[in-house]
């Protein structure tokens, strides 16, 4: 506002406010998921048979597919940032679009997995393993949806007349998106592969 006053200067750290905020937020997110992993480790060590049995009931090939899915989306997200930075609008739309589709694909597969469990009468209350499974993957899925909203918004915006140019914002979103991917990279072996 008070443009004549030189109070609002360049960020002291040289990192844009939003980006700095995102890094801090991600630190917080790491602690959030750490809480779940801690609980998982403790419960697993005290209920080994239940956990082994639970994990064996999960559909790991589908989850592996989903892992590939998210890794690809992380890659295309990075390409989208680069394209926008270089001012290549159509490339940005392409890569951002693929990212969005991958995210949708992830949720569809997750939906298939969940409904398969429900149809076998498996719910979060079935055992402490499934309690943990549904909580951890559920919160992860919420994070995926939370990422899809701004991805979709930026994509839609870039199709309007004014377009979308703020590649630094996309970069900030990218940080978040890579984090969501990373969480899955931990969830996948921990939930599906050890039994």
């Amino acid at each position: 506002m008070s443009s004549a006053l030189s109070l609002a200067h360049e960020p002291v750290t040289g990192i844009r406010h939003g980006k700095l905020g995102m890094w801090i937020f991600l630190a917080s997110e790491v602690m959030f998921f750490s809480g779940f992993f801690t609980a998982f480790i403790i419960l697993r060590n005290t209920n080994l048979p239940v956990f082994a049995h639970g994990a064996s009931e999960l559909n790991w090939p589908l989850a592996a597919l989903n892992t590939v899915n998210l890794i690809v989306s992380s890659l295309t997200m990075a390409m989208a940032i680069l394209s926008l930075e270089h001012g290549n609008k159509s490339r940005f739309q392409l890569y951002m679009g693929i990212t969005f589709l991958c995210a949708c694909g992830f949720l569809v597969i997750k939906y298939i997995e969940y409904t398969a469990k429900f149809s076998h009468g498996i719910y979060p209350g079935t055992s402490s393993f499934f309690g943990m499974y549904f909580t951890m993957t559920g919160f992860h899925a919420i994070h995926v949806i939370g990422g899809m909203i701004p991805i979709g918004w930026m994509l839609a915006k870039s199709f309007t007349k004014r377009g979308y140019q703020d590649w630094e914002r996309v970069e900030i979103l990218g940080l978040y998106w890579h984090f969501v991917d990373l969480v899955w990279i931990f969830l996948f072996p921990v939930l599906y592969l050890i039994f």
Partner: protein
Amino acid sequence: MAAVATTQHDHAHVATHDAAHAHDHAHHSVSFIRKYIFSTDHKTIAKQFLSTSMFFLLVGGAFALFIRWQLAYPGEPIPLVGKWLPDTLVSNGAVQPGFYTQLVTMHATIMIFFVIIPMATGAFANFCIPLMIGTDDMAMPTVNMVSFWLVPIAGLTIMSGFFVEGGTAAAGWTNYPPLSASGTGHTLWVIGVFLVGFSSILGGMNYLATTLNKRAKGMRMFDMPLTVWALFITSILQVLGTPVLASAVSLLFVDQVFHAGIFIPENLLTSTGGLFPNGANVGAGGGGQPVLFQHLFWFYSHPAVYIMILPIMGVVSDILATFARKAIFGYKAMVFALMAIAFLGFVVWGHHMFLSGMSPLLGTTFMLSTIVIAVPSSIKIFNWLGTIWKGNIHFATPNLNALGFISTFVCGGLSGIFMAIGPIDVYIHDTYFIVAHIHYVLFGGALFGIFAGVYYWYPKMFGKMYNETLGKFHFFLTFITFNLCFFPMHMIGVGGHMRRIHDPYVYEFLKPFQPINQFITIFAILMGFSQLILIFNLLWSLKFGRTAPRNPWRANSLEWAAPAHPGHGNFDRDITVYRGPYEFASPQSKRDYLPQWIRPAHVDAEQEATVVGKH
């Protein structure tokens, strides 16, 4: 405006200020809603936090008085309000056992999550950080707005528990399962705590980004006042600690709704059979770990007690230095002590669980790490004493409250050391000794510090001076009644009086304590009603207070460079920082203080222009 912009050496500059402000005003036909309700201005948000917390302070205080009434006169109807309460809560106007546990739970939940934390971080961080680092607003104003609005939503969620079947949460503010693993009231508690925790994380994120990125020109980290340092370090605790509470309550939620057996142990039998619909045996699919919840909970909640006290330590440091007209003693040591307390705060949580079932070896490590915290804490105490030592002490209301903070905090810290010793804690755990401790650190410590800060910054917040006589009266009344109320709790605690008990006198050995409990209750009531003086003073002075000067306390930090009642954008002058915030009695200046923003070559002329009394 030009008269206010005191950098008269540069008329062209002043003119641009004017232009900027004219432009400002044209722009500023913001709607009432954007200006006062969904505001993104950090000062407005600070005031919103302050008023919301004040409201919750009254609610939580009323609950406390119900509790005290029951302990002093069990079975007798609550005066005035008893007959209005529904029969599910009271019988013949007297508190029922179920209502009693709800009261202790809600009292602590409200005081911790909705009073002290939002005041210490929300109100002070929002008001002080941008002003004290010389900038116009927070780094992320919209996030800041969301961080406030989550608080009333969370508060309403938790309070709505009173209207659901089975009543509100009643397992204590620590909400341990399995007791808390069923009932709508507990589920609402979990949702509310999750939301208020999210508010805390968003706030902390913003305070960190702002402090790192938006400091005025020339201000290094070690030029920041201790208030800002303390809030900065507190924010780290908020950002790293709160999410663990969020994951703990999320898992508790899954247990409540689905009976997953995460915290509910295998083959749990309850006397009523009502806790779980089938009577028992939820653990067919693996047994849960109730103690796991305690670990996760205290991993947050011990750092949380530092979230409640560190900002206050910063505020008190600034106030003591200003009113003793002396530099803070050992500025860097104060900063490092804050860091040490924050770090150690993450490795001591087990001292709340000595009796929960823990390897004695682990208990010993927690005992040692807890005792070690006494070292940085003492550094702070000694440095405060060093600051006021031989100072030119002014006993204005903020300073009285700050001194009150030190004396009660020392007392609470000492009882902490007792409880930190495992073998002693076995005896006093879950007694009124603990209640005495928490009130000495949280009421005596945090709340006196909050009072100090509110009085200290009131002139800058509202542009008016509060009434000094009423302020002093409020302080002395509160200080005396506080000690008479809480000190005897140490004694009945050591005598075996347990906490959270509806009617202690069912035990023969507690009967002699009834007169002491009545004594405590009388002073609790007096203390409660003394707070009306504070509320009256704050509201009355809004309208009838003397107009505040720009720098009423002749302090050095940047907020006093802003106009008496700063508008949007905060400052009417460029801010460059030339020195640390504690230059009292500097040989460079004729006066006994030398603000951070005064240019070295112009000390006398410029200081003249912002001298006390001018707006």
